[in-house]
């Protein structure tokens, strides 16, 4: 779950980190009102789940309330990398002497947490890593041990920050680690972390990704789940509890298991088609889940044909076949369907499907044959 900047800052604030006062605004008027309450100058910042806001004109300095009015009307509705700006964060402007970078994430290779700190902030860390890797001070933290103040001190010392920033940076490093661990975050990133002219270290931006698997112990994360960017199709699938990722193509994909679903998307591409989605219905493949999946796919106007790719494991072919037939009775499908059913009792399953087959419901023996057929159908060139 990706947080908006302002949600990230509110999250950081709970752990004692210094963030700027600000307010969320959904309209120009709300932005103006917020600026009047906060007092100018302020920053007007687009809240979107993507980077490159500054370059796209989504972050502006406003010296006066008139400036706020102008910038807010320009930024609301702006398209930043395909994300339409619907909310703004109006924040007290800060004076900046220096810009740093700080983050924690999981290093999957080392199987430990990785902290990165750099005196070269305000630019993408990937750029720093590529051009000047020595400018990044790294620390591996064993999750079973945690981060000690001594270790944090050594980590900060290694980053060669301005000496007046060191003590404040160590405080923030400890707080950032607490936020990362106690908050079950996949990523916490401050870029830039700034030093002000009066020598305070201050959090000027916040990028936070939370682990959605941890919701059971963070009831307050439900509000973040609601602000995740999902297109209409993804929203519908999410409501049905389906693992769905919207893609750009015309072949609807339904498969059981994440690996098989990914593989199905690959094979459709390999034979010249364009998948409309990734959809994993899980192991069971019963009628309820199948009907829900077909409804989601059916509501996608781009879908011209549908590929149901099921491998029966514990769930036997007959059960899968009966599930598909029952689902088809419940949902009125427009696009032609190609089924590939394999695995446990596949022959029995195919026998059940056989009488239902027609020019809108077809069956192919292998994944590759089914992919070819479904792509042909999507292209309108039925053999």
């Amino acid at each position, binding site marked *: 779950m990706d947080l908006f900047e302002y949600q990230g800052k509110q999250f950081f604030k709970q752990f004692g980190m210094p963030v700027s006062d600000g307010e969320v605004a959904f309209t120009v008027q709300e932005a103006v009102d917020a600026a009047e309450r906060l007092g100018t100058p302020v920053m007007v910042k687009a809240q979107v789940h993507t980077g490159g806001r500054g370059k796209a004109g989504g972050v502006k300095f406003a010296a006066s309330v008139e400036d706020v009015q102008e910038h807010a009307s320009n930024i609301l509705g702006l398209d930043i990398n395909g994300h339409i700006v619907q909310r703004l964060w109006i924040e007290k402007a800060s004076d900046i002497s220096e810009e740093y970078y700080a983050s924690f994430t*999981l290093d*999957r*290779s080392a*199987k*430990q*947490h990785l902290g990165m700190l750099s005196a070269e902030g305000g630019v993408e860390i*990937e750029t720093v890593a590529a051009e000047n890797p020595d400018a990044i001070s790294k620390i591996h933290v*064993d*999750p*079973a*041990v945690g981060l000690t103040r001594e270790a944090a001190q050594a980590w900060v010392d290694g980053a060669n920050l301005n000496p007046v920033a060191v003590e404040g940076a160590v405080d923030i490093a400890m707080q950032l680690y607490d936020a990362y*661990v106690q908050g*079950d975050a*996949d990523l916490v990133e401050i870029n830039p972390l700034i030093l002000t002219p009066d020598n305070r270290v201050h959090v000027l931006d916040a990028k936070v990704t939370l*682990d959605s*698997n*941890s919701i*059971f*112990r963070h009831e307050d994360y439900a509000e973040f789940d609601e602000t995740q960017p999902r297109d209409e199709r993804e929203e519908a699938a999410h409501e049905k509890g389906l*693992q769905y*990722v919207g*893609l750009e193509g015309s072949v609807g994909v339904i*498969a*059981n*298991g*994440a*690996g*098989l*679903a*990914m*593989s199905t*998307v*690959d*094979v459709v*591409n*390999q034979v010249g088609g364009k*998948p409309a989605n*990734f959809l*994993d219905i899980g*192991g069971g493949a019963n009628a309820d889940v199948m009907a829900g999946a077909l409804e989601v796919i059916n509501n996608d106007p781009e879908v011209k044909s549908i590929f149901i790719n099921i*491998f*029966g*494991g*514990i769930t036997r072919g007959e059960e899968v076949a009966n599930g598909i037939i029952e689902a088809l009775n419940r949902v009125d499908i427009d696009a032609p369907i190609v089924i590939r059913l*394999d*695995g*446990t009792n596949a022959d029995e399953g195919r026998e059940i499907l056989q009488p239902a087959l027609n020019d809108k419901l077809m069956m192919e023996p*292998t*994944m*590759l044959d089914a992919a070819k057929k479904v792509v042909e159908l999507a292209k309108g060139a039925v053999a």
Partner: protein
Amino acid sequence: MSIFVDSNTKVIYQGLTGSQGRYYGLLNRDYGTQVVGGTNPKKAGEDVDGIPIFANCAEAVEATGATASCIFIPAAGVYSAVMDAAAGGIKFIVCITEGVPAHDEATFYNELKAQYPDVQLLGPNCPGIISPGQCNIGITAGHIAKAGGPVGIVSRSGTLTYQALYELQQKDIGVTTCVGIGGDPVPGTSFIDCLAAFEADPDTHAVMMIGEIGGSAEEEAADFIKNHMTKPVSSYIAGVTAPPGKKMGHAGAIVSGGKGTADAKMEALRDAGVKVGLNPTEAGELMAEIVASL
């Protein structure tokens, strides 16, 4: 022969009294797995279809001599279940549960390493392990696997593991052991752990490895294959056409910052001499060619 588990392996099911635990525990017993006990602190002294329930793994190990456990506990209880198994003397822990927080996984991985270095964890979020004809721990359908050898399978994906077993069975090729390491960010058992075990197993003569996008486990495996393996390997990587920044079902399956792409993984594997198929069927065919030439 096989790796990690065989017909002598005695297994405790943590969560045998739950619906999933009971269903798969009994299926595994029907397959021939020595399911010798279950745990549930509230139901100690009871039984599930004749299988005794103990309060914890220590008592279960004491009474049965079990060396392996299989976890079917909801995600919130997995950390405690893993540590209970290790403290109780279990040496091979299979965790089927999905949705375990990544921080929990990282923590128990490192705690096991520090406190119980001889304990091996498989998973979480994995289908389990099967040595066909001997022992099946987890949710793999036993009858899609042909017993014997010469092939060992290691996979990050559940259904693609079944697909691989089935493709080999259709070609009448036997499997020594099939290990599903799971698709999470911190798997207890890595590709390399399994590749090393297969390299050492006298009955395994070739290995099929199924990876997916995200992380760098496949690249690390390629490096190991290049430098330490004499046995031939075929591979398939799922997610060639996955868009960056989107999780494809598994928490670990995500291409981020240009890293973890299928192309990079396939390139590393080819460079290590691995035969890489573009879909599961092709990987199966490549393995059949390898087996024919053994």
